[in-house]
C-alpha cells in the first residue's frame, strides 16, 4: 500500500521552475530518501507535502489524505522537521518537548517509548535552553518533537546538514529503528553517501527527478565501467586525462579521480586505472550528464 502518492506536482516561483512534474510513491514503512544538492527543490516538495504551501498543479496524498482538501486532518498524521532548526531557542529541552506534545494533543508520557532512546541522550541537558545545545543535540531534540505524537509519516528535511559525522551516523541509526516501529520516513539529504541507508531513493536536481529506485538498483544501472585513478598531484592528472581521446569523463572524488572511457575496455596506455563499483554520486553525475 502506498503511504504517499505524488502525481505530477509542479511549482514555480516567479521565473524559477522549482519543481517539474514530480511523481512518485512511497510505500508503507519505507525509509525513502530524496537526494539532491542545495536548490534542487527538496524543501519546496516537503513543504507541499506537509500542506505548508500549495503546488501550482498536480495532486498528492499522504496516508490517504489529500494534501489540499484534507490538510487539517493531514496535519494530525504527519511529523515534520524543517531543514533549519525550528524549535524555541529560549525554551529548555524539556519545555520544548512538553509544548510540542501538547500542541499535538498528547503527552510526553504517552509516546515516551518512541523517543526514549533518543531522549535519554538529551536527558542530562533537559533544563538547558535549546539554543545552547550542540548541532547534533538540536537535531535529536527536533526529532523528538517531531515524533512525540507518533506520526504515521515523518518528513525530515536535511536532518543531517551541519551535523558532525558521528552524530550523522547515530541519526541514521535512529531512523532505522523508527522504521522498525512502522513509521514511514521521507528524508532529504544533500549527502550522496547517506543514500545507501535508505530503502529507496529519488535523485533530484533542478526540480526534476532523475531516477527513483533502490540505491542498489541505481548503482547497478550505471551504464559504464568505472575506474579509479590517483596521483600525488590529482589536478595535473585530471588535466592530462581530459586531453586523452579514450577518456569519456573524469571527476575528482576526494583523493581519487573517477574515470569512464568512451569504450569500456579501451584504456589509455600510461595511466593506472583500477575498476571500481560506482557510488550514488557517480550515478547522479552520470544522470546529469545524460540530460
Amino acid at each position, binding site marked *: 500500500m502506498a503511504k504517499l502518492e505524488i502525481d505530477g506536482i509542479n511549482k514555480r516561483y516567479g521565473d524559477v521552475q522549482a519543481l517539474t512534474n514530480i511523481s512518485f510513491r512511497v510505500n508503507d514503512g519505507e525509509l525513502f530518501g530524496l537526494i539532491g544538492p542545495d536548490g534542487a527543490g527538496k524543501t519546496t516538495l516537503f513543504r507541499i507535502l506537509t500542506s505548508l504551501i500549495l503546488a501550482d498543479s498536480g495532486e498528492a496524498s499522504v496516508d490517504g489524505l489529500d494534501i489540499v482538501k484534507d490538510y487539517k486532518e493531514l*496535519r*494530525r498524521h504527519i511529523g515534520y522537521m*524543517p531543514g533549519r*532548526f525550528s524549535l524555541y531557542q529560549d525554551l529548555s529541552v524539556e*519545555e520544548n518537548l512538553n509544548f*510540542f506534545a501538547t500542541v499535538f494533543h498528547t503527552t510526553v508520557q504517552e509516546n515516551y517509548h518512541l523517543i526514549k532512546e533518543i531522549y535519554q541522550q538529551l536527558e542530562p541537558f533537559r533544563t538547558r535552553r535549546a539554543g545552547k545545545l550542540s548541532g547534533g543535540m538540536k537535531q535529536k531534540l527536533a526529532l523528538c518533537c517531531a515524533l512525540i505524537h507518533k506520526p504515521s509519516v515523518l518528513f525530515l528535511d536535511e536532518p543531517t546538514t551541519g551535523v558532525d559525522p558521528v552524530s550523522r551516523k547515530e541519526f541514521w541509526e535512529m531512523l532505522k529503528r523508527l522504521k522498525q516501529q512502522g513509521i514511514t520516513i521521507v528524508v532529504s539529504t544533500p549527502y550522496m553517501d547517506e543514500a545507501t541507508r535508505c530503502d529507496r531513493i529519488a535523485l533530484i536536481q533542478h526540480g526534476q527527478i532523475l531516477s527513483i529506485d533502490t540505491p542498489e538498483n541505481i548503482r547497478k544501472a550505471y551504464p559504464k565501467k568505472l575506474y579509479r585513478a590517483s596521483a600525488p598531484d590529482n589536478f595535473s592528472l585530471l588535466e592530462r586525462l581530459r586531453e586523452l581521446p579514450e577518456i569519456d569523463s573524469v571527476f575528482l572524488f576526494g583523493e581519487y579521480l573517477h574515470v569512464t572511457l568512451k569504450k569500456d575496455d579501451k584504456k589509455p596506455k600510461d595511466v593506472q586505472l583500477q575498476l571500481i563499483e560506482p557510488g550514488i554520486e557517480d550515478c547522479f553525475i552520470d544522470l546529469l550528464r545524460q540530460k
Partner: protein
Amino acid sequence: MKQFWAFIIKEFEHIFRDMRTILLIIGIPIAQILIIGFAVSTEVKNIRVAVYDPSNDVSTQLIINHFESSRSFEVVRSLQSPDEAERLFQQNAFDFALIFSEHFDENLYHTGEASVQFIADASDPNYGNTAVAYATNILSDYQQELMQKAMASGMNSANFRIVPQVQMLYNPEMNGSYNFVPGLMGMVFILICAMMTSIAIVREKESGTMEVLLASPVKPIYIVISKMIPYFLISWFILIIILLLSIFVLNVPVAGNLIWLNVFSLIYILVALSLGLLISTLVRTQVAAMLASGMGLMMPIMILSGMIFPIESMPPVLQWISCIVPARWYISGIRKIMIEGVGVIHILKEMLILTGMAAAIITLSLKKFKTRLE
C-alpha cells in the same frame, strides 16, 4: 483548551526570558511618563466660542464682532445663563466661553471699568493658554479703539478698563501632564500591543517555528490569539502603573470613573492588538514589523492624535485623516473621562468608534491570516 494554555504559558516565558523585551515594554512607558514632554507652542484656529451677554449693548456687541471677525475664533452659540456654560462645556459644544457682566456698557462709561469672564478648556493646556492669549489681545485692541474714539470726541478722562477674568476649566494649574498623560497612554499601548504583538508573531515566522506549528493540528488562529493575551494582560498592568504614576508622581488626579476609564482603555488596547495582528499578516521579518508599527502607527499618533498639535487647528484634510487614527479618539476620550471627569455617556461616541475599529481590523486580519506559509 489545554493547547491554548500551553501557548499562553510559552508566550509568557518568551517575554520574561528576554530582558530587552521587558525593558522595552515596562521601561519605556515609565521613562516616558517621568520625562514630561516639552510644551510645544502651536497656533490655534477656529476656537468655538459661546457667549453669555446679559447686557446686550453696543460695547458687548462690538466685542463679539471683534471675536467673530478674528481668524482664531468662531462664535457658535449664545448662552442663557453662566451655569449653562459649564454644562455645555462637558458636552464639548464649544471650547471657549465669553461671559459678560451685567450693565457692561453702563459700567464701562460711568465707572471706566467693566469685567468679562473667559472660560477656556485647559485639559489641553497649550490650547487653553493660546485661546486666552488671543482673547486678551482682542479685548485690548477694543480698549485701544475706545480710547482713541474718546480722545477724538474730546473726552479727557479717557480711561477705560475692561478686566478679563480668566478661568481655566479642568486644569486650573495648567499642569502639562494633564495633556501629556492621555497622549502617552495613547502611544504606549500602540507600542506595546501593536509593535510587540506583531514582532512576536513575525518572530515565529522568521525563526521557522511557524512552519512547525502550521504543520501541526493547532488551529492557526489559536497561535495568534494566544500571542495577544499576554500582551493584553501586560498592557493592563502598564495601564495601572501609568495611572499610579500620574496620580502620585505627576499629581494628575483621575477625576472620572476609574472602572470606565479601564474599560475604555481596554477597548483601545484591543484595537492596538488587532493592529499588531494585521501588521504581522503583512510582513515577513521582525525588522519590517518594527518599521511598520513604528513609522506606520507611531508617527500618525504623534502628529494626528491631538497629543501634540490640537486637531482643531489642523487643515480640514488632516482633520479628516485624523479620524482614522485610533489614538485620536482614545486621547480625546481619556481627556474627558480622566481630566474633565465627565460621565461615560460623554465618551460614548469615542467608545463606539474604537469598538468598531477593533471589530473591523480583527475581521480584516483574520481574513488575511494564512493557514499556510505563503
